[in-house]
C-alpha cells in the first residue's frame, strides 16, 4: 500500500498536468498596450477614456480555436477600505442597523469582455479566474473572519450595485472588439470621480471555455502642477496649509468689507 502511493500520486499529477501542458504547447502570447500610461489631472480634467489594444501572437502552425478567442479585461484601481450599511425601521425612523466591511477592495473596478461571460466559460472557470464583477474577490470582514462571500449575498450585491451607480464599478460584455481574429481593442472609460493612483489591467485570453494565457499592464492617474502642489501641501504640510487657508478666509472677508464699504 505504502509503496503504491507515490506511483499513484505521479499518475494523478500527470493526468491533471496534461491539459496544461497541451495549452502550453499552443504557445499563444498576448501583446498589449494602453494608449496612455500616465493620465494627468489638470484643472480642466473631467475624466478620460483610455484605449487598450493588443494582439494574440501565435505559432504559425497552430490552428485557430474552433469558436475563436475570448478576452476578458479587468481594470482595478487603488485599494481602499469601504463599509456597506443597511437601514431598518426602528421606532418609526430609518436607522443603520447592520454593516459589513469591505477590506482592500478596488476603488475602481471594470470587467470588459467580447461576449457574455456565461458563454465564454463555465461558472467554475469564471470563479477561479475571477472574471466579471460577480467573481472578483472582494474581501469582507465577517465577524473575526476575512473572506469573500457568494455573489448573491445582499451586502455584496448592494455594494456592487451602489458602486455601479456611481460609475466606479462596471461590467460590459461587448466592450472588447476583435478587429481580426487575433487583434483586439477595448476602451476604458474613467469618470472624473475615479481616484488617483495606480490602476492594474489584467488581460485573460480564453478559448473553448478554458484559460489560454494572460498578461497584465498598468497605468496611473496622477495630479500634476497646481493640483499636485495643493494635494501634497494639504497632506505633508497640513499645519501651514491650515494656516494659509484660514488666512485666505480672513483676507477674503477683509477685502469684501473694504470693497463693499458703504462710505
Amino acid at each position, binding site marked *: 500500500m505504502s509503496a503504491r502511493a507515490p506511483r499513484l500520486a505521479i499518475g494523478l499529477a500527470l493526468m491533471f498536468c496534461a491539459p496544461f501542458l497541451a495549452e502550453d504547447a499552443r504557445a499563444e502570447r498576448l501583446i498589449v498596450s494602453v494608449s496612455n500610461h500616465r493620465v494627468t*489631472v*489638470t*484643472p*480642466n*480634467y*473631467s*475624466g478620460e477614456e483610455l484605449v487598450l489594444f493588443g494582439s494574440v501572437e501565435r505559432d504559425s502552425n497552430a490552428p485557430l480555436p474552433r469558436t475563436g478567442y475570448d478576452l476578458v479585461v479587468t481594470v482595478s484601481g487603488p485599494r*481602499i*477600505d*469601504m*463599509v*456597506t*450599511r*443597511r*437601514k*431598518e*425601521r426602528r421606532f*418609526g*425612523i*430609518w*436607522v*443603520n442597523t447592520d*454593516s459589513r*466591511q469591505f477590506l482592500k477592495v478596488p476603488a475602481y473596478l471594470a470587467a470588459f469582455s467580447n461576449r457574455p461571460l456565461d458563454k465564454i466559460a463555465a461558472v467554475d472557470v469564471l470563479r477561479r479566474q475571477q472574471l466579471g464583477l460577480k467573481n472578483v474577490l472582494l474581501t469582507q470582514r465577517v465577524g473575526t473572519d476575512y473572506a469573500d462571500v457568494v455573489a448573491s449575498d445582499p*451586502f455584496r450585491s*448592494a*455594494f456592487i*450595485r*451602489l*458602486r455601479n451607480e456611481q460609475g466606479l464599478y462596471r461590467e460590459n460584455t461587448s466592450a472588447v472588439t476583435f478587429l481580426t481574429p487575433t487583434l483586439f481593442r477595448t476602451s476604458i472609460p474613467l469618470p*472624473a*470621480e475615479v481616484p*488617483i493612483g495606480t490602476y492594474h489591467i489584467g488581460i485573460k485570453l480564453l478559448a473553448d471555455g478554458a484559460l489560454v494565457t494572460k498578461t497584465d499592464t498598468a497605468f496611473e492617474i496622477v*495630479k500634476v502642477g*497646481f*493640483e*499636485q502642489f*495643493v*494635494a501634497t501641501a*494639504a*497632506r505633508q504640510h*497640513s*499645519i501651514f*496649509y*491650515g*494656516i*494659509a*487657508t*484660514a488666512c*485666505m*478666509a*480672513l483676507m*477674503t*472677508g*477683509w*477685502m*469684501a*468689507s473694504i470693497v*463693499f*464699504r458703504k462710505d
Partner: protein
Amino acid sequence: MQLYLPIADIPVNVFLILAMGAAVGFVSGMFGIGGGFLMTPLLIFVGIAPAVAVASVASHIAASSFSGALSYWRKRAIDPMLALILLSGGIVGTTLGVWTFTLLRSLGQLDLMIALSYVVLLTSVGAAMFWEGLRAMLRARGGNPVPLRRSGSHGWIHGLPLKVRFKRSKIYLSAIPVVVIGLIIGFIGAIMGIGGGFILVPMLIYVLRVPTATVIGTSMVLTLVTMTFATMLHAVTNHLVDVVLALILMTGGVTGAQFGARAGQRIRGDHLRLLLGLLILAVGVRFAIELGIRPTDLYTVRETTGGV
C-alpha cells in the same frame, strides 16, 4: 466652466458653486447667521464628499463672518467681554463635540445623529422663531407697539452668581449661563458641522436678554473664532479642506452677504424673524421627512480608508 478640485477630487462647475455661495451668503448676510446648515447639504447634493464639504464650509463661514464682524465692529455693535466668555465655553464644547463625533462615527450612527439633531434643533428653533415673529407682527398690526421685555422680567437665570458687567450690551449678568450657551453651541457645531449662529442668536436674545444691537455682531465673532479653529483642525487631522472649493465659496459668499445685509436692513425685524423661522423650519422638516419615509435605497456605501 468646469474646474477640478484638488482635494475633493472631482470637477465642479465654478459658476454653480459661485452661485450657491452667493445665495447662501445672501441669506447669511440678511439674517446674520453663518449659513453652514444650508451650504453643507447643498455641497453634498452636488457630489462633494460630506467630510470635504463640512471641512471646506468651515473656512467659507470664517470668511463671511469676518467680513460681517468687521462692519459690526466699526458700528461698535460687538461686545468683546460677552464674546470672550462665550468662547471659553465654546472651546470646551467643541472639544467634547469632536470626541463625540469620532465615537458616533465608529458606531456607524453618525448620519442618524446628525439627522436627528437637525430635526430636533431646526424644527424647534424654526417653529419658535416663526411663532414669535408672527405674534410680534400681529401685535404691530393691531396697533400695540411691540412690548420689549427688558428690565423687570428677570428670570432665575438672572439670579445666578458670578455676575459680570457687559458694558457694550449694557447688561449685568452671571457668567455661568453664558459659558453654558457657548458650550452647547460649540458641541452642536462640532457634531453637525455648522457654525450654530442660528441657535446662538435666539438664545442670546430670548434666554440672556442681550439687546439685539450687539447680538449679531457678537455671535459673528464667536462663529469666526470657532470656524477658523475648525478649519485648522480639519486641515491638520483629516487633510480634507479643499482650498480651491473654499476660495470659490468665499468669493460668492462674501459678495452675497453684502447684498443680503442691505436687504436685511430694509425688512422689519419681525418679518425677518418670521422669514428666518420659516427657512429653518423648512430645512428641519425636510430632514424629518427623510427619517420617516422608507429610503429609496436601504444600503449605503462609504469609504473608511484612513481610520474610522
